[in-house]
């Protein structure tokens, strides 16, 4: 399973890319593989304020609907609205075109390193 080294992760299988004070968030390769074909993404509104651990939307696949949890607190500055038409981007390119939201984050949060996340995946197997 692809676990890029330049990202941070959560125990609920989201990834975070931090650039300055902007965090881009999506779901991991493992998460998309577990979900199967994604058919719908419920996106939040730009401007929504989140606390770490808040649910900000959901991903629906042919198997299940799963909540998305924000790894960080902050305000949503952008959502990937192309997912409304093409949710399959999450399956095809979870770390690239399949990103879900960007937020201007505030404060620190407990995130997993790629090594820790890899270990978590091995434990879950």
């Amino acid at each position, binding site marked *: 399973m692809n676990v890029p080294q330049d990202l941070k992760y959560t125990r609920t299988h989201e990834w975070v890319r931090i650039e300055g004070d902007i965090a881009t968030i999506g779901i991991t390769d493992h998460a998309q593989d577990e979900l199967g*074909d*994604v*058919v*719908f993404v419920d996106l939040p509104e730009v401007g929504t304020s989140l606390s770490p651990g808040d649910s900000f939307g959901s991903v*629906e696949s*042919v*198997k*299940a609907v799963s909540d998305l949890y924000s790894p960080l607190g902050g305000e949503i500055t952008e959502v990937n609205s192309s997912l409304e038409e093409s949710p399959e981007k999450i399956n095809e390119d979870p770390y690239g075109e399949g990103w879900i939201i960007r937020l201007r984050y505030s404060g620190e949060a407990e995130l997993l390193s790629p090594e820790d996340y890899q270990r978590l995946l091995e434990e879950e197997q």
Partner: protein
Amino acid sequence: MPASLIRAKSRPGRRGYTLPAPDVPEVPPEKILPEGALRKERPDLPEVDEPTVVRHYTNLSRENWGIDTNFYPLGSCTMKHNPRANEAAAAIPGFARLHPLQPEEQVQGALELMHRLAAFLSEVSGFPAVSLAPLAGAQGELTSILMIRKYFEDAGDEGRTTVLIPATAHGTNPATAAMAGFKAVEIGLDERGCVDVGELEEKVDETTAALMITNPNTCGVYERNIEEIASILHRSGAFLYMDGANMNANLGRMRPSDAGADIMHFNLHKTFSTPHGGGGPGSGAIACSERLAPFRPDPVVEERDGTYRLVRPEKSIGRVGAFHGNFGQMVRAWSYIRMHGPDLKEVSDLAVLNANYVRARLKGTYDSPYEGPCKHEVVVQPPKGVKALDVAKGLIDRGFHPPTIYFPLVVKEALLIEPTETESKETLDDFVGAMLEIAQDERLEEAPTHAPVRRVDEARAARRLKARW
């Protein structure tokens, strides 16, 4: 081969039936109907002869896969045998031809049956009050939670804003809580697949209106702490609602009221063997404590001096359906209960025995996430590298309806198998044989190969839904 649409068999001018010449004067439609009600073009209906229509639908019906043709181990939603005696009872003209607006004095027999059925459900659940009005299980849930909401409104307790939902809940439970205006809060599980009592204690507070629990839960596990759970809720002034979808495991063995629940719904269409699932309508009767009884929906049947009447409970939440509930299902449920009489508990005993037989025989090949005996359904996981979806497709090739897959959500690659009480050992052995064979099948990803429709593109089907043509 998939059947073609009947439209493909249409030929211009072909008729199945010709109406005789009218024996009253013809009136042009535009003379008696407003313009908005008139079609601008003729309807594009298929033009076919009668034998073609009969063959088309008969051939389609032969593709049906149901409990009358095959074993149907559909966990979480009991697709059980429908005894034909139930159907005979429901077809008695005195029941089948009633009109819901007939005056009470003309329908005393029907009202008496409803009253007696309510008494049976009262006996089975341990609750003093029953309503037969809800038209399906999910509506029974909603009715129950609306009653709880109204109870708190009536008591002036405005702060009850949340409903707690265990991670093993049916998907309808959080939806019900949200529809009734509550915030759904999830409660996790302990290592045995039961509600985590510690987490429950942390999350119960003065904002809690109720906990919605299914017992046995959707993992097929009996909630062994049910009485403690009830007392935690009651201490904080909240209610315990029991989702009765799994009552098939409890009949005559466990009464929700004795376990501390305050209100529950039955699925008459499951537990009491009335047709469901692409067949008949549902029926989601509820049973409750004295405290909640005044809030039951309108109407309930009351008996006084041998006369039955439909009445509105004192603080009723109002109507939940147009009339008095799905009466035909009540007749079937009543018939089923009467046929079993005091031996009704054997229904549950056999359902539990069958599920455990399947569990024991699959052990070693399919993993069980929770150790120990299950109730009337068992959740298993396929061997490593095999997906639940592939097992389901492999079962179709081997002549079995697949069980529920990917539910409960807390178990990866879940297969939820519910054999029900009427299946013979031979049927269960055949099913288990197929499951064991599938575990070794290297070409499973190609299945089904013998079905009229092979693998469908589920993502496209969900996203490009074509509900009409």
